[in-house]
Each structure stands twice: as structure tokens, then as C-alpha cells.
């Protein structure tokens, strides 16, 4: 366990170091001048020189890199060019709503993906199984930004079942303000018993989470179906069935245990996809998270924010992979740390 942790930590820091180098190099080849971007169009030459010195852009590249590295480690991730706020501050404020969104989306994807995958494997030659197959491939083929717009059009515009954008109704701030405890707004509302805010939050999170979940749902449904079918064809299942063990026990007690590890791997992989998925979904739903911030940073070439987001993305990816490995070693004794 500790060996796994240590091995992972060292390789993770190497990857992050490489990632920081990568983002730094990318930021250096920007055709647009960051100093000019910072001071804006109405600046004098003197302003420009001052900002260039302030940002350290007059130093040689290796010096700049080591300074950047030192800053990153000490928590100074620079200032966003568009909001003029510290990048780390922006990330800290916007990460919790994004994590809540991803968590709900992954929850949807696992529940629906597993149920549909199990149904398709249990009745492999039914019309339902064929439909589930098309549906799961549709899940990985649908553009998230378009699905988001369609759901808005249908459920907000036509049916009026859900609110269009944001994480809470706007008046919640005044009528039932959420107390800041963990920083996760929906979670905080729930543990403080602020049910008005919780209800509002749940209504707001359904559509973006469903949009985000489509891809993972497709992968999970496909993987669980394929694995269950393979397990069903193995001798121990045939023997169990021959002995008259009930189908429920066969599926839940015997088959699922052996079919689940690859499903976990694929869940982790698809969660990593969701990280970039939030860029599009949060933009469509105006979600106050890191994804929408990232999309704006990318469009406005806000390079300190972009560098921060790239590092954060790599770190998030590593974390997800690490969690997946931890779960796999816990549930499957054949995998050694």
C-alpha cells in the first residue's frame, strides 16, 4: 500500500514537472505578446516596460522557467489576465461546483450504465439489448455541447421543467444564503439543512450532469455488457446455473464480482474525459465552475490561467488514475501493489 503510494507520488511529481515544462514552453511560443495583453491597448511604452519587468518577461528563458517553477510550488500561480485575480484563487473558488457537477454526472453514468449493461447481458438477443447497444454508442458519439443545447431547448424552453443556467436560483442568495463550510455549495446547503437551496441546486444540476454523463454512460454500459457476457460464458457460471442457483444470485453474487474491475477502469478513464467535457457543458449551462473559466481563458489567451488549468488538469487526471488503482487493488486480490 505504502509502496504503491510512494511509487505513484514519485511518478506523479515527474509527470507534473514535465507538464509544467510543457505548459511553460507553450506559453513562450504565444504569438501575441503577454505584456501587451496585460496592459491593454491604451498603454504607453513606459507602462509596457514596467509590466514586462514585473512579469519577468525581460529575463532569459531558463531563468523564467525556474522562477515559474518556484512560484508554482510556493502557490503563486500568477494573475489571470481577464479577471486580474490570482489564478489559484480563481481555481479554489470555482473547483467545488465543478467537482459537484462531475460527481453527480459520474453517479448518473454508473447507475444507468450498469443497469443498462446488465439488462443487455442478461437478455442478449432481445430488442432491448439491441437498443441499449445503439444507445451506448450514441452516448459516446453525441457532441456534449449540442446535447446540452437540445436538453435546454426541450426541458427548459418547451416543457419548462428545469431552470436554464447557473447552479442555484438567483434569489437563493438573499432568501436562503448558503453558509460556507466546506466550500462545496450543494454539499454545504445539504449539511446545514438549507433545503430550499438544496432543491434549487438539484433542479439546476440535473441537465448539465446528464449532458456530461452521456459519454461515460456509453462507455460503462458497453464495457459492463461485454464483460458480463464473457463471464456468463465461463464454466463456473454454467455450473451454478446447472445446479439451479437463482439468476439473481448468479448475476449479483457470482458474475458481477468478476465483471466489475474493467468497468471501474473504464469509469476512471471516462471521468478523465469529463474534465475537458466540463469546458463545454459549463459554458452552455453557465455553470460557475472551472470549466467555463477554462473555456474563457482559452478563447482570450489568458495564459497564466491556461497554464494553471493545464497543471490542474494533469493533476486531476493523475488523481483519478490513482483512485482507480487503489479501488482495483482493494477489490481484486490478484492485482498487486
Amino acid at each position: 500500500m505504502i509502496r504503491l503510494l510512494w511509487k505513484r507520488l514519485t511518478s506523479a511529481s515527474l509527470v507534473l514537472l514535465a507538464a509544467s515544462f510543457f505548459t511553460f514552453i507553450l506559453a513562450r511560443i504565444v504569438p501575441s505578446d503577454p505584456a501587451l495583453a496585460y496592459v491593454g491597448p491604451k498603454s504607453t511604452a513606459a507602462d509596457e516596460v514596467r509590466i514586462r519587468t514585473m512579469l519577468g518577461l525581460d529575463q532569459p528563458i531558463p531563468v523564467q522557467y525556474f522562477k515559474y517553477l518556484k512560484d508554482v510550488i510556493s502557490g503563486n500561480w500568477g494573475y489571470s489576465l481577464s479577471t486580474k485575480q490570482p489564478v489559484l484563487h480563481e481555481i479554489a473558488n470555482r473547483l467545488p461546483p465543478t467537482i459537484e457537477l462531475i460527481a453527480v454526472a459520474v453517479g448518473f453514468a454508473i447507475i444507468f450504465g450498469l443497469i443498462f449493461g446488465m439488462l443487455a447481458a442478461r437478455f442478449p438477443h432481445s430488442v432491448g439489448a439491441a437498443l441499449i447497444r445503439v444507445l451506448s454508442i450514441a452516448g459516446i458519439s453525441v457532441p456534449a455541447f449540442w446535447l446540452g443545447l437540445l436538453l435546454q431547448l426541450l426541458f427548459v424552453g418547451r416543457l419548462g421543467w428545469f431552470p436554464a443556467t447557473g447552479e442555484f436560483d438567483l434569489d437563493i442568495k438573499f432568501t436562503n444564503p448558503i453558509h460556507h463550510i466546506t466550500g462545496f455549495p450543494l454539499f454545504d446547503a445539504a449539511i446545514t439543512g438549507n433545503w430550499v437551496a438544496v432543491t434549487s441546486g438539484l433542479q439546476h444540476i440535473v441537465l448539465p450532469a446528464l449532458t456530461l454523463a452521456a459519454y461515460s454512460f456509453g462507455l460503462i454500459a458497453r464495457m459492463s455488457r461485454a464483460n458480463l457476457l464473457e463471464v456468463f460464458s465461463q464454466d463456473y457460471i454454467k455450473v451454478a446455473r446447472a445446479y439451479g442457483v437463482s439468476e439473481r444470485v448468479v448475476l449479483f453474487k457470482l458474475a458481477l464480482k468478476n465483471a466489475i474491475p474493467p468497468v471501474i477502469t473504464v469509469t476512471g478513464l471516462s471521468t478523465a474525459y469529463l474534465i475537458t467535457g466540463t469546458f463545454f457543458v459549463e459554458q452552455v449551462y453557465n455553470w460557475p465552475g472551472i470549466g467555463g473559466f477554462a473555456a474563457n481563458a482559452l478563447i482570450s489567451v489568458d495564459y497564466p490561467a491556461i497554464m494553471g488549468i493545464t497543471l490542474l488538469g494533469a493533476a486531476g487526471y493523475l488523481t483519478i488514475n490513482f483512485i482507480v488503482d487503489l479501488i482495483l487493488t482493494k477489490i481484486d486480490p490478484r492485482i498487486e501493489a
Partner: protein
Amino acid sequence: MDTKAMKIKVAKLSWLVANPYAIVASSILTIFLACAAFSSWLAPYPKEGAGAPNVAHTLIGPSRLHLLGTDELGRDLLSRIIFGARPALLTSLTVVGTAALVGTLLGLIAGFRGGLIDAAVMRLSELFLSFPPLLLSLVAVSLLGPGLRNALIALIVSWWPWYARLIRNESRSIKSQPFVEIAQAMGVSSWKIMTRHLLRNITSSLIVQIAADLGTVILAAGSLAFIGLGAQPPSSDWGLMVAQGRTVIFDQWWISTFAGLAIFIVVLAFNLLGDELRDYLDPRKRAK
């Protein structure tokens, strides 16, 4: 020789006939290819499809004159979507083609030579794959400047490592088989072994991967265009059209809806076909 080729052809045809998914998918893709090749003949309003505005007809809903309606410049949406097939196809072919070529070359050399080259290629591809998918492309295109050309570069940059790893792993496992060792012992040149023995045995995995990626790249390029980093106006890019229709989605729903539907259907067809090909080319499943 001829009868053998005929038999293979018949076998392929019978596989297609026995496979409703494959039929549907390949029909969709045939229409898509036809749209890409003959845009100006198939589009009902070729001039509008190519971008000429028609201000007298702005934002008309679907009707007999304009089956899918018109956009904010009065252009027939069906014609625009038909004209969007070519850029989508070219983008996808360019990215997948280049990534597969670069990846296959590096993967073959790494798998065959081993040692330092292998380690270098593997570590480099690991570095690229340590970012969440698409993140590198997004960052690269943002910093290089938005536009189709940079989007292509950015997509290739994050796509080649998949091919390098796939080809490297497969060629390693084939390399250790007796027939390759014998060929080496007989003095067959490295290049010949790589192309004749390794590459030929990897072809089916390569085809499956390419089939699946052709769709995924259309999706990725559409996403880039949607947030404003890919193809720029007045391009008939589908993702761009979805973005342009977004501001009027609640009133003029057809623009985003149909443009996105085009992406969805084409990507779905590629993925369905890829899935069927995987089952077909997988020797374990074929035996059953």
C-alpha cells in the same frame, strides 16, 4: 488467384448483408461521402451553401422551400450542412492520417528496435497521454491562435501517441514469434521485416482504431469550433454552425439542432462501423 479474390469479396459482402448495423452505418457514411464529394450538385442552393448571404430569407423555419430552414444570413441550412461535409471529412482524414502515419512509424521502430529508441518514444507518448484527452489540443490551439490549420496541428499533436503505443505493443508481441526470428536469422532486412511481417499483422488493429478515430476527430474538431477555437466564419463547419445558432436556440431552434445532428449521425455511423469491424476482425470472435 481471381477466384480467391472473388471469394474474399463475397465473404465481405455477406458479412455486410448479415449485419444490419453495418448496413445502416455504411449507408450513412456513403451519403456523407457523397455530400463531401458533390456538395455543389447535391445542395439545393449551392451558392448559399458556399456562403453567399440571402438577406431576404433570414431565419425562416423549416418549410418546403428550405427543408431545414435558413440561418441568420438567410442561407439555406440544408445546403450549408451539405457543404459542411467536406471540411469535416478533410479534417478527420488529415488528423487521423497524419497521426496514424507518425504513430505507426515511431511505434514500429520502437517495437522492433527496442532499447533506447523504444524508451524515448514510450516516455514521450506517456507525457502526452498524461493530460486529460483534448486538453492539450485546446491549450495548443489557444496559444497558437484559433483557426482550422492550428486546430489540425493541435489535434494531430494529441492523437499520434495512441497510435505509437498501439503499434509498438503489437509489434513487440509479433516480433517475438518464431517466423520473425527465422526471417531475421535468414538475413531479411529490418525494413522488410517491419513492413512485411510486423505491419501486415497489425493492419487489422490499425483499421479498427482508424475507423473509430475518424468519428472521434470530427467530434473533437466540432468541439473546438464550437467554443471558437477551430474553424472560423464563414466556414461551413458544423460545430461553428451549432455555436452560431446557440444565441437564438429558443426561437430559431433549427440551426443548432440540425447542424449538431449532422455531427452526431456521422460520428455515430463511424463508431457503429468501427464496433462491427472490431468484432469482425477479432479472430477470437470470428471463430465462433
